[in-house]
Protein backbone atom coordinates (compact mmCIF):
# COMPACT_ATOMS: atom_id res chain seq x y z
CA UNK A 1 0.00 0.00 0.00
CA UNK A 2 1.65 3.23 -1.15
CA UNK A 3 0.72 6.69 0.04
CA UNK A 4 1.56 9.89 -1.81
CA UNK A 5 3.39 12.67 0.05
CA UNK A 6 0.13 14.67 0.13
CA UNK A 7 -1.77 11.72 1.60
CA UNK A 8 0.92 11.18 4.22
CA UNK A 9 0.79 14.85 5.17
CA UNK A 10 -3.00 14.77 5.41
CA UNK A 11 -3.08 11.57 7.48
CA UNK A 12 -0.68 13.12 10.02
CA UNK A 13 -3.20 15.89 10.74
CA UNK A 14 -5.74 13.35 12.05
CA UNK A 15 -3.54 11.71 14.66
CA UNK A 16 -2.98 12.96 18.19
CA UNK A 17 0.57 12.23 19.36
CA UNK A 18 0.54 11.10 22.98
CA UNK A 19 3.14 9.88 25.45
CA UNK A 20 1.88 7.51 28.10
CA UNK A 21 3.97 6.51 31.09
CA UNK A 22 4.19 2.99 32.48
CA UNK A 23 1.04 2.12 34.49
CA UNK A 24 -0.92 5.10 33.16
CA UNK A 25 -4.41 4.42 31.87
CA UNK A 26 -5.54 5.07 28.34
CA UNK A 27 -9.04 3.74 29.05
CA UNK A 28 -10.88 2.67 32.18
CA UNK A 29 -13.86 0.37 32.43
CA UNK A 30 -17.08 2.41 32.38
CA UNK A 31 -15.64 5.15 30.15
CA UNK A 32 -16.18 5.44 26.40
CA UNK A 33 -13.20 4.46 24.28
CA UNK A 34 -12.63 7.79 22.49
CA UNK A 35 -9.52 6.78 20.57
CA UNK A 36 -8.24 4.03 18.33
CA UNK A 37 -4.55 3.92 19.03
CA UNK A 38 -1.42 3.02 17.06
CA UNK A 39 1.60 2.08 19.18
CA UNK A 40 4.78 3.73 17.88
CA UNK A 41 6.86 2.67 20.87
CA UNK A 42 6.23 0.82 24.10
CA UNK A 43 3.71 -1.77 25.22
CA UNK A 44 0.00 -1.59 26.12
CA UNK A 45 -2.39 -4.17 27.48
CA UNK A 46 -6.17 -4.37 27.55
CA UNK A 47 -7.94 -6.38 30.21
CA UNK A 48 -11.13 -6.65 32.17
CA UNK A 49 -11.61 -7.20 35.88
CA UNK A 50 -14.08 -9.74 37.27
CA UNK A 51 -16.23 -9.40 40.39
CA UNK A 52 -13.49 -10.93 42.52
CA UNK A 53 -10.97 -8.37 41.28
CA UNK A 54 -9.09 -10.79 39.03
CA UNK A 55 -7.64 -9.31 35.85
CA UNK A 56 -8.20 -11.11 32.55
CA UNK A 57 -5.87 -10.12 29.72
CA UNK A 58 -7.57 -9.42 26.39
CA UNK A 59 -4.73 -8.15 24.24
CA UNK A 60 -1.18 -6.85 24.26
CA UNK A 61 -0.02 -4.26 21.72
CA UNK A 62 3.54 -3.21 20.98
CA UNK A 63 5.34 -1.35 18.18
CA UNK A 64 3.28 -1.35 14.99
CA UNK A 65 0.11 -2.70 16.62
CA UNK A 66 -3.26 -1.06 17.15
CA UNK A 67 -5.17 -0.97 20.42
CA UNK A 68 -8.65 0.04 21.50
CA UNK A 69 -12.08 -1.28 22.38
CA UNK A 70 -13.54 -1.32 18.88
CA UNK A 71 -17.11 -1.83 20.10
CA UNK A 72 -16.97 1.16 22.45
CA UNK A 73 -15.04 3.25 19.91
CA UNK A 74 -17.57 2.71 17.11
CA UNK A 75 -20.75 2.75 19.21
CA UNK A 76 -19.78 5.39 21.80
CA UNK A 77 -21.12 2.94 24.41
CA UNK A 78 -19.16 2.44 27.63
CA UNK A 79 -16.27 0.01 27.62
CA UNK A 80 -15.89 -3.11 29.75
CA UNK A 81 -12.12 -2.95 29.32
CA UNK A 82 -9.18 -1.21 30.88
CA UNK A 83 -6.17 -0.24 28.80
CA UNK A 84 -2.89 0.80 30.41
CA UNK A 85 0.82 0.94 29.62
CA UNK A 86 3.11 -1.91 30.65
CA UNK A 87 6.05 0.17 29.38
CA UNK A 88 6.42 3.90 28.64
CA UNK A 89 4.66 4.36 25.32
CA UNK A 90 4.50 6.74 22.39
CA UNK A 91 1.13 6.59 20.70
CA UNK A 92 -0.78 8.03 17.76
CA UNK A 93 -4.46 8.32 18.62
CA UNK A 94 -7.41 9.01 16.35
CA UNK A 95 -10.99 9.93 17.25
CA UNK A 96 -14.01 8.36 15.54
CA UNK A 97 -14.81 11.58 13.64
CA UNK A 98 -11.17 11.88 12.57
CA UNK A 99 -11.13 8.19 11.59
CA UNK A 100 -14.22 8.57 9.37
CA UNK A 101 -13.09 11.83 7.81
CA UNK A 102 -9.62 10.44 7.10
CA UNK A 103 -11.07 7.44 5.26
CA UNK A 104 -13.25 9.72 3.13
CA UNK A 105 -10.34 11.98 2.25
CA UNK A 106 -7.73 9.23 1.88
CA UNK A 107 -9.64 6.20 0.50
CA UNK A 108 -6.56 3.99 0.52
CA UNK A 109 -6.80 4.07 4.33
CA UNK A 110 -10.19 2.37 4.10
CA UNK A 111 -8.48 -0.55 2.41
CA UNK A 112 -5.75 -0.48 5.05
CA UNK A 113 -8.27 -0.72 7.89
CA UNK A 114 -10.33 -3.37 6.09
CA UNK A 115 -7.24 -5.58 5.93
CA UNK A 116 -6.38 -4.71 9.53
CA UNK A 117 -9.86 -5.69 10.76
CA UNK A 118 -9.81 -8.89 8.63
CA UNK A 119 -6.54 -9.88 10.27
CA UNK A 120 -8.00 -9.04 13.65
CA UNK A 121 -10.98 -11.35 13.07
CA UNK A 122 -8.67 -14.17 11.97
CA UNK A 123 -6.46 -13.64 15.00
CA UNK A 124 -9.46 -13.73 17.36
CA UNK A 125 -10.76 -16.92 15.73
CA UNK A 126 -7.37 -18.55 16.16
CA UNK A 127 -7.28 -17.51 19.78
CA UNK A 128 -10.72 -19.05 20.31
CA UNK A 129 -9.64 -22.30 18.66
CA UNK A 130 -6.46 -22.33 20.77
CA UNK A 131 -8.43 -21.83 23.95
CA UNK A 132 -10.93 -24.64 23.28
CA UNK A 133 -8.81 -27.15 21.41
CA UNK A 134 -5.38 -27.28 22.98
CA UNK A 135 -3.75 -28.18 26.24
CA UNK A 136 -2.25 -25.46 28.42
CA UNK A 137 1.26 -26.43 27.25
CA UNK A 138 0.24 -26.32 23.58
CA UNK A 139 -1.39 -22.93 24.08
CA UNK A 140 1.81 -21.59 25.60
CA UNK A 141 4.17 -23.02 22.96
CA UNK A 142 1.95 -21.75 20.15
CA UNK A 143 1.81 -18.30 21.71
CA UNK A 144 5.55 -17.91 22.11
CA UNK A 145 6.17 -19.38 18.65
CA UNK A 146 4.02 -16.67 17.07
CA UNK A 147 5.10 -13.88 19.47
CA UNK A 148 8.63 -14.64 20.73
CA UNK A 149 9.08 -11.14 22.24
CA UNK A 150 6.20 -11.81 24.66
CA UNK A 151 8.49 -13.66 27.07
CA UNK A 152 11.04 -10.84 27.13
CA UNK A 153 8.58 -8.04 27.73
CA UNK A 154 5.51 -9.35 29.52
CA UNK A 155 5.44 -10.66 33.10
CA UNK A 156 4.61 -14.37 33.41
CA UNK A 157 1.46 -13.77 35.46
CA UNK A 158 0.01 -11.64 32.64
CA UNK A 159 0.89 -14.27 30.02
CA UNK A 160 -0.84 -16.86 32.21
CA UNK A 161 -3.91 -14.64 32.43
CA UNK A 162 -3.90 -14.16 28.64
CA UNK A 163 -3.85 -17.93 28.18
CA UNK A 164 -6.55 -18.46 30.79
CA UNK A 165 -4.34 -20.55 33.06
CA UNK A 166 -2.96 -19.97 36.55
CA UNK A 167 0.59 -18.61 37.05
CA UNK A 168 1.42 -21.88 38.85
CA UNK A 169 0.37 -23.91 35.80
CA UNK A 170 2.46 -21.69 33.54
CA UNK A 171 5.44 -22.05 35.83
CA UNK A 172 5.07 -25.85 35.71
CA UNK A 173 4.79 -25.79 31.90
CA UNK A 174 7.94 -23.68 31.59
CA UNK A 175 9.79 -26.09 33.88
CA UNK A 176 8.64 -29.08 31.80
CA UNK A 177 9.72 -27.39 28.59
CA UNK A 178 13.14 -26.61 30.04
CA UNK A 179 13.56 -30.24 31.13
CA UNK A 180 12.68 -31.45 27.62
CA UNK A 181 15.50 -29.38 26.06
Amino acid at each position, binding site marked *: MVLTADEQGLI*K*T*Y*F*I*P*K*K*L*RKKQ*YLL*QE*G*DVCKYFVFVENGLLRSYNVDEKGNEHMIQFAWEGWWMGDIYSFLSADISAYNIDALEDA*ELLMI*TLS*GFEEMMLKVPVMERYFRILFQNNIISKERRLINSISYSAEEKYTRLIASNPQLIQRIPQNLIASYLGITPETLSRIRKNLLNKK
Partner: protein
Amino acid sequence: MDFKDTVAILGANSRLGTLIAKAISKKFRLLLMDEQLQQLTELANEIAVINSTAAIEIIQCCKDASWEADIIIVVADDATQAAIAGKIKEVATCKIVINIGTSANCSKALQLLLPHSKVVTISVDGNTDEKEPGTVSIEGLDETAITTAYKLMLLTGLNVVVKNVA
Protein backbone atom coordinates in the same frame (compact mmCIF):
# COMPACT_ATOMS: atom_id res chain seq x y z
CA MET B 1 -12.01 6.21 38.77
CA ASP B 2 -8.73 8.05 39.06
CA PHE B 3 -8.35 8.77 35.38
CA LYS B 4 -7.61 12.44 34.82
CA ASP B 5 -6.73 14.32 31.69
CA THR B 6 -3.20 15.69 31.69
CA VAL B 7 -2.74 19.45 31.33
CA ALA B 8 0.64 20.96 30.48
CA ILE B 9 1.08 24.55 31.62
CA LEU B 10 3.87 26.20 29.63
CA GLY B 11 4.76 29.33 31.57
CA ALA B 12 3.52 27.98 34.90
CA ASN B 13 5.59 30.50 36.90
CA SER B 14 3.68 33.44 35.47
CA ARG B 15 0.88 35.02 37.51
CA LEU B 16 -1.85 33.50 35.33
CA GLY B 17 -0.05 30.18 34.98
CA THR B 18 0.22 29.87 38.75
CA LEU B 19 -3.42 30.87 39.28
CA ILE B 20 -4.61 28.23 36.82
CA ALA B 21 -2.30 25.52 38.13
CA LYS B 22 -3.62 25.98 41.66
CA ALA B 23 -7.24 26.15 40.50
CA ILE B 24 -7.30 23.03 38.33
CA SER B 25 -5.04 20.71 40.32
CA LYS B 26 -7.99 18.78 41.79
CA LYS B 27 -9.43 17.90 38.40
CA PHE B 28 -6.38 17.37 36.23
CA ARG B 29 -2.94 15.82 36.29
CA LEU B 30 -0.52 18.72 35.84
CA LEU B 31 2.76 19.05 33.98
CA LEU B 32 4.33 22.33 35.02
CA MET B 33 6.88 23.83 32.65
CA ASP B 34 8.92 27.02 32.89
CA GLU B 35 12.53 28.16 32.85
CA GLN B 36 13.05 28.81 36.56
CA LEU B 37 13.23 25.36 38.16
CA GLN B 38 13.42 26.65 41.73
CA GLN B 39 10.23 28.71 41.31
CA LEU B 40 8.47 25.75 39.65
CA THR B 41 9.42 23.48 42.55
CA GLU B 42 8.05 26.04 45.01
CA LEU B 43 4.81 26.18 43.02
CA ALA B 44 4.51 22.38 42.96
CA ASN B 45 5.11 22.27 46.73
CA GLU B 46 2.54 25.01 47.30
CA ILE B 47 -0.08 23.08 45.30
CA ALA B 48 0.75 19.88 47.19
CA VAL B 49 -0.04 21.71 50.45
CA ILE B 50 -3.38 22.99 49.12
CA ASN B 51 -4.27 19.65 47.54
CA SER B 52 -2.47 16.61 48.92
CA THR B 53 -3.82 14.31 46.18
CA ALA B 54 -2.66 16.54 43.31
CA ALA B 55 -0.73 14.76 40.56
CA ILE B 56 1.97 17.23 39.57
CA GLU B 57 5.18 16.85 37.64
CA ILE B 58 7.81 19.37 36.70
CA ILE B 59 9.02 19.17 33.13
CA GLN B 60 11.63 21.49 31.67
CA CYS B 61 11.07 20.69 28.00
CA CYS B 62 7.94 22.21 26.44
CA LYS B 63 7.87 19.55 23.70
CA ASP B 64 7.91 16.64 26.17
CA ALA B 65 5.25 18.32 28.31
CA SER B 66 3.02 18.93 25.27
CA TRP B 67 3.57 15.40 23.93
CA GLU B 68 2.35 13.89 27.17
CA ALA B 69 -0.51 16.35 27.66
CA ASP B 70 -4.13 16.11 26.54
CA ILE B 71 -4.57 19.87 26.92
CA ILE B 72 -1.80 22.46 26.52
CA ILE B 73 -1.94 25.88 28.17
CA VAL B 74 0.49 28.52 26.93
CA VAL B 75 1.11 31.63 28.99
CA ALA B 76 3.73 33.61 27.07
CA ASP B 77 4.33 36.79 25.09
CA ASP B 78 4.20 36.78 21.27
CA ALA B 79 7.90 36.17 20.71
CA THR B 80 8.00 33.28 23.18
CA GLN B 81 4.77 31.87 21.73
CA ALA B 82 6.37 31.63 18.31
CA ALA B 83 9.37 29.80 19.75
CA ILE B 84 7.13 27.44 21.74
CA ALA B 85 4.90 26.79 18.71
CA GLY B 86 7.94 25.78 16.66
CA LYS B 87 8.94 23.26 19.33
CA ILE B 88 5.53 21.74 20.07
CA LYS B 89 3.92 21.83 16.62
CA GLU B 90 4.45 18.17 15.76
CA VAL B 91 3.18 16.88 19.13
CA ALA B 92 0.20 19.24 19.43
CA THR B 93 -1.76 17.95 16.42
CA CYS B 94 -5.52 17.79 17.15
CA LYS B 95 -4.91 18.83 20.77
CA ILE B 96 -6.59 21.70 22.55
CA VAL B 97 -4.10 24.54 22.99
CA ILE B 98 -5.23 27.35 25.27
CA ASN B 99 -3.37 30.59 24.79
CA ILE B 100 -3.76 32.83 27.84
CA GLY B 101 -2.76 36.43 28.38
CA THR B 102 -4.01 39.70 29.81
CA SER B 103 -6.15 41.89 27.57
CA ALA B 104 -3.07 44.07 26.99
CA ASN B 105 -0.80 41.35 25.62
CA CYS B 106 -3.04 38.56 24.36
CA SER B 107 -2.87 37.86 20.63
CA LYS B 108 -4.28 35.22 18.31
CA ALA B 109 -0.98 34.47 16.58
CA LEU B 110 -0.84 30.95 17.99
CA GLN B 111 -3.74 29.73 15.82
CA LEU B 112 -1.71 30.53 12.71
CA LEU B 113 1.41 28.93 14.15
CA LEU B 114 -0.43 25.71 15.11
CA PRO B 115 -2.86 25.17 12.21
CA HIS B 116 -3.63 21.54 13.12
CA SER B 117 -4.35 22.22 16.80
CA LYS B 118 -7.59 23.44 18.35
CA VAL B 119 -6.43 26.82 19.58
CA VAL B 120 -8.48 28.91 22.00
CA THR B 121 -7.45 32.40 23.03
CA ILE B 122 -8.26 33.54 26.54
CA SER B 123 -7.86 37.13 27.57
CA VAL B 124 -8.00 38.09 31.24
CA ASP B 125 -9.18 41.60 31.93
CA GLY B 126 -8.67 43.08 35.39
CA ASN B 127 -7.88 41.32 38.65
CA THR B 128 -7.02 37.71 39.25
CA ASP B 129 -7.76 38.27 42.92
CA GLU B 130 -10.43 35.95 44.33
CA LYS B 131 -12.12 38.85 46.17
CA GLU B 132 -12.52 40.99 43.07
CA PRO B 133 -12.36 38.59 40.15
CA GLY B 134 -11.70 39.98 36.71
CA THR B 135 -13.37 38.93 33.48
CA VAL B 136 -12.10 36.23 31.16
CA SER B 137 -12.98 36.28 27.46
CA ILE B 138 -12.72 33.10 25.43
CA GLU B 139 -12.39 33.08 21.66
CA GLY B 140 -11.83 30.25 19.25
CA LEU B 141 -13.08 28.31 16.26
CA ASP B 142 -13.52 24.84 17.72
CA GLU B 143 -16.61 24.35 19.87
CA THR B 144 -15.19 21.44 21.90
CA ALA B 145 -12.05 23.42 22.65
CA ILE B 146 -14.06 26.47 23.72
CA THR B 147 -16.22 24.32 26.02
CA THR B 148 -13.15 22.71 27.56
CA ALA B 149 -11.48 26.10 28.07
CA TYR B 150 -14.69 27.48 29.58
CA LYS B 151 -14.99 24.63 32.10
CA LEU B 152 -11.34 24.95 32.96
CA MET B 153 -11.52 28.70 33.53
CA LEU B 154 -14.64 28.37 35.69
CA LEU B 155 -12.43 26.53 38.18
CA THR B 156 -10.33 29.68 38.62
CA GLY B 157 -13.26 31.64 40.07
CA LEU B 158 -12.93 34.39 37.46
CA ASN B 159 -15.95 35.72 35.54
CA VAL B 160 -15.94 33.86 32.26
CA VAL B 161 -17.47 35.23 29.05
CA VAL B 162 -17.46 33.35 25.77
CA LYS B 163 -17.01 35.97 23.04
CA ASN B 164 -16.86 33.89 19.95
CA VAL B 165 -18.23 30.43 19.18
CA ALA B 166 -17.75 28.83 15.78
